[in-house]
């Protein structure tokens, strides 16, 4: 990639603003609430965009475009089914308890509602997860900088060995995120996430515009890709008739209910953004405001993937970058998607049927290189870097809060002064980032360990929503019920995964590691969705059974924590368009329309 001076100026300008925001906010951080919860003083629209942006990490931009190239428009299920309903639910029904209980974190809500052990379980697994997620973001970003040869020219000029590019990329991204969080805490992270949101939109919109124009518009695009790629619902009747290999029930229940509600309604990474809002109604509006751009994001991130496979492969510029840039003999890719290259042989990797394995993750980078001239290319690369950083910063701010409030203050040093916890929060930011760096390096060495960890996290997360649902809407649910329900849900997920396999896979990390094979799913996605369904159902049933067998908490202790014992938030004073119910209904209606258009 040849970046010129204008591209570098754009990139540096962005970094200057990111740090500048941190510096401006520095003087405003005086208490731990300022640092961890942004003083609960942020307007709804800012929280809303940060809510969205904190989730806009590496997986989102690179991964969704990759998935768009692999599965087509059906990828939008991850938004329209897999996010919007849950975002509406958390805003309307759950936020009154998160915000109203004055809990400072999601694990703290669990302590208020259930007990210490349930909080501890959630806090520790969540803190570990955030560190690894931010490490993976960091790793992915450094790999991308290497693959795109962004730093090759400047390194050559400074006569530094290109081996250092990976290390410098890791160190640089870590330092930027560290600096702006240390300076301004959560407000700095939130403000930067909003900036990143606009930058991502500004950087990727022209990509969609130019891409669609070059293939001759949407209708021409639909003619160039297989019919199944342009529909989200047609073909969902059976796993055999859609590229994802799932059927509608697994999709709606697994993705749309268990996984999506489990993430958007319980993950402190996003909930923290709403908790920073300046009022209850602003907190409730946060996910609803976020839902509007969220439902439109498929056009920004999935469409480029679809365009990437529709661009004729014979275009000379098609082979822009492949995983390790060997000389290409015969083009085996699909459109702008190059085949994966086997590092040991330097030749394209082939699957068991002899077809090349495609490197879908390069959809967005290759689209940028294919369409963007110098100038706009700088903006596009900056947008990409911004997306990595917002994902990283989101994890780090969630980590320092859960560490300080839920682990340090609860188990290590209770009853210290607020200034002490503020200092601890800053310190936690430093070692959280240090641990992320360690995770990023672990990813370079032990790829399997990272896959395994992600699998374990999936087991831990899958049952979570059952616990929260029962906790918020059933006053009889008890702490023992919640704790052992969660454990049994995680165990059920592991058991299900250990006894099933996606078709074509071998026993091991993909499943069936318990020795026997009970069921073969048509695809890995179907297996994941059903693992989640089993975990959720087990947790739900076990929590109810154990709760009924254990002593309930007195009702007066549960006021403000459970639906039936909490006064409904008043919103008569709000204009109709600021009422969560009206907003939520609007969001659902718009999502339905999108589903109908792209059915």
């Amino acid at each position, binding site marked *: 990639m040849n970046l010129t001076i*204008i591209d570098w*100026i*754009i990139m540096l*300008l*962005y970094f200057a*603003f990111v740090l*500048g*925001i941190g510096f*401006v*906010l520095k003087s*405003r951080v005086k208490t731990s609430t300022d640092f961890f919860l*942004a*003083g*609960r*003083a*942020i*307007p709804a629209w*800012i929280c809303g965009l940060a809510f969205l942006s904190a989730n806009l990490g590496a997986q989102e931009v690179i991964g969704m475009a990759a998935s768009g190239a692999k599965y087509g428009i059906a990828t939008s299920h991850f938004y329209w089914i897999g996010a919007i309903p849950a975002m509406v639910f958390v805003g309307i029904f759950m936020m009154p308890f998160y*915000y*109203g*209980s*004055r*809990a400072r974190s999601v694990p703290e809500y669990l302590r*208020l509602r259930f007990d210490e052990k349930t909080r501890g379980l959630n806090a520790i697994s969540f803190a570990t997860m955030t560190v690894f997620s931010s490490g993976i973001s960091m790793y992915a970003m450094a790999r991308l900088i290497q693959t795109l040869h962004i730093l090759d020219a400047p390194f050559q000029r400074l006569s530094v060995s290109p081996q250092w590019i990976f290390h410098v990329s890791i160190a640089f991204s870590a330092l930027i995120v560290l600096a702006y969080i240390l300076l301004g805490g959560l*407000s700095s992270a939130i*403000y930067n996430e*909003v*900036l990143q949101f*606009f930058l991502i939109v*500004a950087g990727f919109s*022209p990509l969609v515009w*130019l891409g669609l*124009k*070059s293939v001759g518009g949407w209708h021409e695009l639909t003619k160039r890709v297989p019919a199944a790629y342009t529909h989200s619902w047609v073909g969902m009747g059976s796993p055999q008739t859609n590229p994802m290999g799932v059927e509608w029930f697994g999709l709606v229940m697994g993705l749309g209910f268990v996984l999506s509600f489990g993430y958007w309604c319980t993950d402190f990474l996003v909930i923290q953004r709403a908790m920073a809002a*300046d*009022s*209850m*109604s*602003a*907190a409730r509006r946060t996910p609803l405001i976020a839902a509007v751009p969220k439902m439109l994001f498929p056009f920004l991130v999935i469409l480029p993937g679809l365009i990437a496979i529709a661009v004729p492969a014979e275009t000379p*510029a098609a082979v822009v970058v492949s995983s390790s840039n060997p000389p290409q003999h015969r083009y085996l890719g699909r459109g702008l998607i190059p085949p994966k290259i086997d590092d040991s042989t330097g030749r394209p990797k082939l699957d068991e049927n002899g077809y090349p394995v495609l490197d879908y993750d390069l959809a967005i980078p290759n689209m940028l290189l*294919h*369409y*963007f*001239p*110098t*100038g*706009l290319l700088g*903006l596009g690369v900056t947008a990409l870097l911004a997306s990595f950083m917002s994902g990283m910063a989101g994890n780090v701010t969630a980590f320092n809060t859960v560490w300080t409030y839920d682990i340090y203050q609860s188990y290590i040093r209770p009853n210290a002064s607020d200034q002490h916890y503020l200092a601890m929060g800053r310190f936690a930011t430093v070692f959280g980032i240090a641990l992320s760096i360690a995770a990023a390096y672990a990813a370079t060495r032990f790829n399997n360990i990272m896959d395994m960890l992600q699998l374990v996290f999936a087991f831990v997360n899958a049952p979570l929503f059952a616990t929260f649902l029962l906790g918020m809407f059933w006053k009889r649910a008890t702490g023992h019920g919640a704790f052992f329900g969660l454990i049994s849900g995680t165990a059920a997920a592991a058991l299900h995964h250990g006894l099933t396999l996606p078709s074509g896979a071998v026993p091991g990390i993909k499943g069936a590691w318990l020795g026997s094979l009970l069921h073969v799913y048509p695809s890995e996605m179907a297996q994941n969705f059903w693992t989640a369904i089993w975990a959720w159902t087990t947790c739900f049933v076990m929590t109810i059974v154990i709760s009924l067998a254990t002593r309930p908490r007195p009702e007066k202790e549960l*006021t*403000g*924590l459970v639906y039936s014992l*909490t*006064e409904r*938030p008043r919103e008569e*004073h*709000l*204009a109709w368009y*600021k009422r969560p119910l009206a907003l939520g209904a609007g969001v659902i209606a718009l999502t339905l329309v999108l589903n109908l258009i792209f059915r």
Partner: protein
Amino acid sequence: MGLDIRLPIGALFTILGVLLAGYGLGSNATVYQRSLGINVNLVWGMVLLVFGMVMILLGRRGASHGSKLEDRNHPAKTQP
């Protein structure tokens, strides 16, 4: 938190817009072979410039209105 985020966003996009559009005016057409012959730097630079100026305008108006957002005066006071 006292800082209206629209101001720095507006400032960044205004500068980006001026930079891109200016570069678009000065660069020659061969640069734009990739982008289907369209001078995207100029076009998109103008879009960013307009967006940036609107943000600054909104931020300044918001600052002069103070924080009159009606539900700011009704923060949640529910205690567990």
